């Protein structure tokens, strides 16, 4: 490989400072343009008709009356979205999720769509579409879906690697681990075994899905869209609609949150298909209700956790049996739970068995460290129970068993340098651990793990004749990457941060970039920009050499300036980047740096959290008193943003732990598709979330960067569960720990004496 991604421990001038964010003014003044903020001449309003049934055969769809309404320009059903992917299963699933094909698989599944001249006309047309449904039995609970005789969600599904003749809702069963757990449990002095459940939650991004689609009669199209990955959206839309990838230009808007929910297409192919049929631009903006019913929340789960330990605190065996529902289409969410469940610990005998199960709910999407928070809830709750059983401090118990460099991870490989022990040591010494607790108050802590990955990345640096710098990246800025990437360019080129402008380029401008997921934005584009900047510095040295008429080997680049090397050039005046840029039209034209890479070498990340709560024993209501996050960030490029990621992840975890929940009725319909009845935390629900950044460099990145955005959503469910348990003496085994659920647990325990 030409560019070496190894960590070099170089000294920094810009990296690690807290420079002003580049998008702040636009966002607070309303100038920033989000998914719904684009318009085009002659645009139509797109709307989607959704199934009111959890599971139903679609016997017919009659659009004839709707088509006759004045102002209706196009109506589409699955007949307008034929299979263009030759039955490729994962893409066909996405297509079927965009528009039901013969069967509605969940409440909110799209069955038809309309484009009309205004919203009123579009609504009228939706009402005029007649769908003849035959209601089928449904199942929305993961345990019920695994029972013999449960309604089958997808008749083609067979358990991967299992019986090829048996219809089932179990799409796959994954196993991870090593050692012999039977022998390990036989060695244990104490064995704790518990079952846990977590309910389904939505990412809760404030900006609903929105796009403006335009397809012309020549087959070329444009899409403006709120997305975490416009290159992925381009590829998926082009494949699903039979378009050439090069003829579909996708531009990503500012994004009002994604957290995994905007990693693949939902209604964008529908908008493009409507536009193609109407030969007019179509703007499609989902309502909040549609976001809840028709896009991808995370899984609900059910799990059994078993831990055996010696009286001295060493764990001898650990087992997790995890059942995750994927919605109506197969996914890998249970598998991810299985990979992450035991990753914090150094265990001689460990096993995770993970089931991915179909139910009549929306297709599950990633949600920030997908699947890890639920497994951590079960594992970290059980860890506390084991610590109590052997009368050991829960932090010391975890430290004794924590993974370290050289530990074989429960998911397979051996760890390099990792930070779990450092986070636990920091928790042990954190001032919050000494804060006094009052009546009905309790303290809990928990650990969490998440991966990080890189992927295909492409970046360009262009230097203007005034010495300012444009950085073009293809990774959508979901968490401040334009700031961190500008800092990296400034660091490498040796110019002030304020002279660098970073933009997210559209799909016609750069080569493919993978989606911003897996905490990869700053990791991967940062790597590409380092190499692109070094590429540009090579050109800057060449231009200085040309100016001085000396060999390029005799030009040194230091702090943004070219210096001639050797005494023979003592009469030559150093040339700054600005000097060289000003003369660039006469030394060879524009100066640029470019890089394409697959940014492998990602490092894993760990966090440990402390939570203090007060529980009202009369109402079951929980108030978070204090909350502290400790996480290994690798090198923190912009500490403000890193702290913001820690706080945001913890806040989402707090909402998940205490309130957020998809509530389904017996009819399989979602009962709370709105923020009034689905309660995410607001500022008044939260204390200031304290943060501690640890910097254990990732050896696989030149700056030591690790992903930081996801890990800290992993511990909160368990940290809060442990705190509530310590506050009221009742072990909570069901998330969210909402007031009715806590009250019921307290009353049940009182009744039991």
């Amino acid at each position, binding site marked *: *490989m030409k560019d070496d991604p190894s960590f070099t421990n170089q000294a920094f001038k810009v990296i690690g400072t807290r420079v002003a964010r580049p998008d702040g003014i636009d966002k607070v003044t309303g100038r920033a343009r989000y998914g719904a903020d684009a318009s085009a001449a002659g645009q139509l309003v797109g709307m989607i008709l959704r199934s009111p049934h959890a599971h139903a055969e679609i016997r017919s769809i009659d659009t004839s009356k709707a088509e006759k309404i004045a102002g209706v320009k196009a109506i589409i059903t699955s007949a307008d979205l034929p299979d263009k992917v030759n039955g490729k299963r*994962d893409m066909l699933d996405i297509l079927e999720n965009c528009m039901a094909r013969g069967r509605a698989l969940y409440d909110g599944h799209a069955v038809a769509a309309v484009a009309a001249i205004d919203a009123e006309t579009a609504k009228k047309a939706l009402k005029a579409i007649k769908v003849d449904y035959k209601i089928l039995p449904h199942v929305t609970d993961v345990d019920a879906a695994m029972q013999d005789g449960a309604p089958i969600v997808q008749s083609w599904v067979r358990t*991967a*690697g299992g019986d090829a003749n048996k219809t089932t809702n179990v799409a*796959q069963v*994954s*196993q*991870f681990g090593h050692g012999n757990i039977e022998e390990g449990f036989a060695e244990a002095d104490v064995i704790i075994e518990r079952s846990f459940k977590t309910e389904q939650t939505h*990412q809760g991004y404030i900006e609903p899905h929105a796009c403006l689609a335009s397809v012309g009669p020549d087959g070329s199209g444009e899409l403006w869209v709120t997305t975490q990955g416009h290159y992925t959206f381009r590829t998926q839309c082009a494949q699903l609609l039979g378009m050439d990838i090069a003829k579909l230009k996708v531009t990503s808007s500012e994004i009002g949150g994604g*957290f*995994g*929910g905007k*990693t693949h297409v939902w209604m964008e192919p529908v908008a493009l298909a409507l536009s193609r049929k109407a030969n007019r631009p179509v703007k499609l903006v989902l309502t909040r209700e549609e976001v809840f019913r028709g896009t991808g929340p995370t899984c609900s789960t059910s799990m059994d956790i078993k831990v055996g330990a010696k009286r001295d605190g060493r764990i001898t065996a650990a087992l997790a049996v995890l059942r995750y529902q994927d919605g109506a289409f197969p996914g*890998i969410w249970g*598998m*991810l739970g*299985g*990979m992450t469940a035991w990753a914090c610990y150094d265990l001689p005998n460990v096993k995770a068995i993970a089931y991915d199960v179909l139910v009549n709910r929306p297709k599950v*999407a*990633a*949600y*920030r*460290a*997908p699947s890890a928070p639920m497994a951590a809830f079960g594992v970290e709750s059980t860890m506390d129970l084991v610590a109590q059983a052997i009368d050991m401090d829960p932090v010391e118990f975890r430290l004794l068993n924590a993974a370290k460099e050289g530990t074989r991870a429960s*998911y*397979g*490989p*051996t*760890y*390099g340098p990792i930070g779990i022990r450092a986070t636990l040591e920091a928790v042990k010494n954190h001032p919050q651990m000494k804060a006094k607790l009052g009546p009905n108050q309790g303290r809990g802590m928990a650990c969490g793990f*998440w*991966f*990080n*990955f*890189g*992927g*295909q990345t492409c970046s360009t640096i262009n230097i203007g004749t005034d010495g300012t710098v444009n950085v073009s990246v293809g990774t959508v800025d979901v968490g401040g990457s334009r700031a961190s990437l500008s800092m990296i360019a400034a660091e490498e080129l040796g110019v002030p941060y304020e002279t660098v402008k970073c933009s997210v380029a559209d799909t016609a401008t750069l080569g493919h970039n993978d989606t911003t*997921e*897996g*905490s*990869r934005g700053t990791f991967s584009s940062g790597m590409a920009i380092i190499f692109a900047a070094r590429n540009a510095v090579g050109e800057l040295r060449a231009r200085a050499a040309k100016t001085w008429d000396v060999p390029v080997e005799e030009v040194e680049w230091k702090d943004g300036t070219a210096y001639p090397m050797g005494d023979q050039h003592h009469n030559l005046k150093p040339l700054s980047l600005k000097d060289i840029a000003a003369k660039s039209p006469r030394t060879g034209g524009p100066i640029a740096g470019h890089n394409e890479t*697959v940014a*492998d*070498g*990602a490092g894993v990340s760990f966090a440990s959290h402390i939570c203090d709560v007060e529980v009202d024993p009369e109402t079951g209501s929980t108030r978070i008193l204090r909350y502290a996050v400790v996480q290994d960030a690798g090198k923190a490029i912009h500490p403000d943003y890193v702290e913001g990621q820690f706080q945001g992840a913890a806040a989402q975890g707090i909402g998940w732990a205490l309130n957020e929940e998809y509530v389904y009725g017996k009819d399989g319909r979602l009962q709370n598709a709105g923020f009034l009845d689905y309660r995410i935390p607001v500022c008044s629900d939260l204390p200031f979330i304290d943060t501690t950044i640890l910097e254990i460099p990732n050896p*696989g990145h030149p700056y030591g960067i690790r*992903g930081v955005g*996801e890990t800290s959503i992993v511990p909160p469910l368990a940290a809060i569960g442990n705190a509530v348990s310590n506050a009221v003496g009742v072990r909570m085994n069901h998330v969210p720990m909402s007031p009715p659920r806590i009250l019921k647990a307290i009353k049940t325990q009182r009744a039991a004496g």
Partner: protein
Amino acid sequence: MQVAVTGLLRAAVNGAASISVEAATIRELLNKLVDRYPKFEALLDSDVAVAINGEIFRDNWSEPIPRDAEVVLMPRIQGG
């Protein structure tokens, strides 16, 4: 060398937890696996990652595999 196989990938190698393969790069390793286990080919595009001495590689199939390295075939993951 011995290559550990985790998760569902085992189904593609007849259930083996570990297999013996000699390969100098990830590409050579994957090609040999496809030769030996034809079902493995369907997994190459989006389902496989390779960890070499603890470092996970998803896309750089040119990565050399050092002699006596720890090699683990693991599922390719998604994030949020």
